[in-house]
């Protein structure tokens, strides 16, 4: 019985865990590179949601100590952490998108299967050594 | 009363040929300078090693330590009687082999590389001889592999590369086994130093002791060409004759056997091994190897292949003698290092001369060679007599002491092995001599090309040595007395038959 009660009080955590798994599933199984980035973003949001909920207080006020505001304050630390996390997420995602653009331009496609199959014929994605002239 | 003396000479002995190798590499393709550097280094090393002989004879041990690379793992040299004996043999033979090689290799290619690694080989062999502990021994053991590999690959043709690859496969896995054994010795005994003699004790438990014994013996056995691990030796015959001479008489195989002696006497110690009983199994293996290798030698058609198989069987003499764990056995094993070295190197030189002079390399082509090269073939006969065990030659001394040792150790079967191997040796050497001297020269045979004295000279010197070792066995200045000192040191037994 207490498992259900426990589950109910921790529902926020369970939702973040579910989001995390969905994101991981998309990242690992989708063949399309852009879909992978979306999956990555879902995972990132879930982790940030999880961290913020750890700092939550029932009917507490946000940590702004303007005059006249009382009541338990939510803890400010997770918010600071998540802000930093979000900026990290933005930078990783932007780098991923640019890399995908370059893969598209140089290997012709963003689908991993197509790139893999193109890789077999010595066409676009020739292995580095046979095109050694790049360094001559 | 062994006195430990701090002395630079062991270090100098190793560094001399290192410097010579550097000089030979530096001097590039200048034959005169190369000859001068090689010979002078050989001479200086010979003098250095022999200068330590008087000290060693009356018990002084020269030592030089670098200090600890890791806790319990130090890098140092310690010239005890056993080490000195091996160094004496190898430095003497190196002088002779250098002279021979200078003549034999005159018109070959990339000679600066050859003589550079040739010098490196000897510096590592002397390093092995003087190693104070298993770690230094292992370092030089691996370096020996690295130095001999280019020598085997000298001809750079397909056969040489295949032989080189096979050689590396065997010796590197041997090295890996020793490394594993060393780690276990260190954890059981806490030290790797060979000074105390018998650093392991029965408290270590049967399982780990047996594993250590198998690992170390197999590791060194690869280079000592014990039967299952001998594959590389016949294949390495493609190398030029001075390399085969150096490899199979002086440096590589002797390093393996020397390692086995160190393991039996200094890592385990004669008493511990007698209780454990592992040495009897090894003795049995050595005995079978002697017989099977001799039978194989019969079947070989190439002279150098026959020599290789004879080396495999001779090496097991040394292992067999050491496993008897009696003073006479130890004496026989140590003295056979010299006897086998000198006899075998004579035969290799003879094979080289025959090849240079008449271009013949097969056993059945030897008809009438005795008339063409009288002196060379007499040296060959002396060496064969030594292997057969005719008195007044070096081989007889070993067989004599080995049989006495076998009787003392109570295992008469090995006396039988001595006799059978003597007969087998006769079976594969005498036909060659008979063909060479008593068969007429075939008509269409071109007469022999004149061979430079610098090749025939070493042949005769080695043959003389074989007789000297046999006849003057107990002469004071002879290496024989050092062998006695080594045996007494190895066994540390009070009773010693005068």
């Amino acid at each position, binding site marked *: 019985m207490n498992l259900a009660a426990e589950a109910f009080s921790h529902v926020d955590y369970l939702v*973040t865990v579910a989001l995390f798994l969905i994101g991981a599933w998309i990242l690992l199984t989708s063949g399309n590179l852009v879909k992978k980035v979306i999956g990555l973003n879902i995972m990132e949001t879930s982790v940030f949601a999880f961290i913020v909920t*750890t700092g939550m207080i029932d009917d507490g006020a946000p*940590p702004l100590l*303007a005059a006249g505001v009382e009541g338990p304050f939510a803890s400010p630390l997770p918010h600071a952490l998540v802000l*930093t996390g979000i900026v990290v997420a933005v930078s990783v995602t932007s780098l991923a998108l640019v890399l995908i653009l370059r893969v598209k331009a140089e290997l012709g496609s963003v689908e991993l299967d197509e790139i893999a*199959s193109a890789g077999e014929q010595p066409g676009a994605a020739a292995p580095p050594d046979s095109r050694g002239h790049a360094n001559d | 009363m062994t006195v430990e003396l701090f002395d630079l000479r062991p270090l100098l002995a190793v560094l001399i040929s290192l410097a010579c190798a550097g000089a030979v590499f530096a001097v590039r393709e200048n034959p005169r300078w190369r000859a001068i550097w090689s010979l002078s280094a050989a001479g200086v090393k010979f003098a250095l090693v022999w200068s330590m002989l008087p000290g060693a004879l009356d018990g002084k041990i020269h030592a030089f330590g670098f200090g600890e690379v890791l806790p319990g793992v130090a890098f140092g040299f310690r010239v005890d009687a056993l080490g000195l004996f091996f160094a004496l043999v190898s430095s003497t033979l190196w002088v002779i082999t250098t002279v021979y090689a200078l003549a034999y290799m005159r018109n070959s290619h990339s000679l600066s590389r050859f003589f550079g690694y040739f010098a490196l080989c000897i510096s590592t062999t002397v390093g092995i001889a003087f190693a104070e502990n298993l770690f230094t021994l292992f370092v030089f053991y691996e370096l020996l592999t690295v130095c001999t590999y280019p020598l085997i690959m000298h001809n750079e043709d397909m056969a040489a590369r295949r032989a080189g690859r096979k050689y590396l496969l065997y010796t590197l896995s041997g090295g890996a086994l020793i490394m594993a054994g060393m780690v276990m010795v260190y954890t059981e005994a806490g030290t790797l130093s060979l000074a105390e003699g018998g650093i392991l004790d029965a408290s270590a438990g049967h399982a780990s002791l047996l594993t250590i014994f198998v690992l170390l013996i197999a590791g060194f056995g690869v280079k000592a060409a014990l039967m299952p691990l001998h594959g590389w030796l016949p294949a390495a015959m493609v190398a030029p004759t001075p390399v085969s001479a150096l490899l199979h008489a002086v440096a590589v195989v002797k390093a393996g056997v020397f390692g086995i002696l160190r393991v039996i006497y200094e890592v385990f110690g004669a008493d511990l091994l007698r209780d454990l009983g592992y040495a009897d199994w090894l003795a049995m293996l050595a005995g079978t190897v002697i017989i099977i290798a001799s039978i194989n030698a019969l079947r070989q058609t190439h002279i150098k292949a026959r020599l290789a198989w004879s080396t495999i069987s001779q090496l097991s003499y040394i292992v067999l003698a050491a496993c008897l764990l009696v003073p006479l056995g130890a004496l026989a094993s140590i003295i056979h290092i010299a006897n086998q070295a000198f006899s075998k190197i004579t035969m290799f030189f003879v094979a080289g001369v025959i090849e240079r002079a008449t271009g013949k390399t097969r056993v059945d082509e030897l008809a009438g060679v005795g008339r063409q090269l009288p002196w060379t073939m007499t040296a060959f006969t002396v060496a064969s007599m030594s292997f057969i065990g005719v008195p007044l030659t070096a081989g007889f001394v070993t067989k004599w002491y080995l049989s006495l040792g076998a009787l003392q150790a109570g295992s008469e079967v090995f006396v039988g092995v001595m006799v059978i191997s003597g007969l087998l040796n006769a079976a594969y050497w005498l036909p060659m001599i008979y063909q060479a001297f008593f068969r007429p020269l075939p008509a269409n045979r071109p007469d022999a090309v004149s061979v430079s004295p610098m090749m025939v000279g070493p042949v005769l010197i080695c043959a003389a040595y074989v007789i000297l070792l046999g006849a003057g066995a107990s002469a004071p200045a002879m290496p024989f007395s050092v062998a006695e000192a080594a045996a007494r040191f190895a066994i540390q037994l009070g009773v010693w038959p005068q």
Partner: protein
Amino acid sequence: MNNRKSARVLTMALMAALAVPLTYGVLQLPTPGQADAPAHSNVSAKYIEAGAELAGSENLVTGVLLNFRALDTFGEVLVIFTAWLAVAAVAGGAREAGQDSIPPSPIVDYVIRLLGPFIAIFAVFVIVNGHVLPGGGFQGGVVLGAMLIMLSLVLGTGVVEGVFSDRVWIWLRAAGVLVFAMVALLGLPAAGFLFGLGQAPALRQALMMALELAIGVGGGAVLAGLYFSIAGTHRS
């Protein structure tokens, strides 16, 4: 992922294997929202009770960001600058600036031009009031970046990027990092430790304002830079 079937089943199994410890572990965490949970009683309690005076800003999150955990934020500003560096270093092919975008419909065009200045004011407001109201350098920077991207959609990346020369743009993007480094060094005399803002209210206030502005402008310039690189490469 060429044999997709087995890969999917494998990942499915992995997901299931991952889900069980995750849910079970998370369930045993202290229930969120309880005032006595360790998350509130330890470091956060100290922030709330003495944070405002020590950090010098009512908005505790900004206080934590700029004062208590300044090294994190420095790392943060640097990651966003590295992102732009990475994109610039990796963007494939030469990027021709000044390429006209597809002209949006006149209504969108007019509305964006109208809203532009107001968004800018709002961005400045968010940056400046970071220590009192919810907001701060990053948030303001994002709004600023969004405005620049919107304008470049309408006016064309070339026009917006042409406002400053390449060199100035790079200095703008590095503003966050440089100002933060200077404030860090200033911390030595001010608080005896690197990244310290000291206790003198006036100095602390000025330093925090400088940081806020630098992070805002830097963040906005970097986000715009990211868009220019991506937009530029797309057409090359």
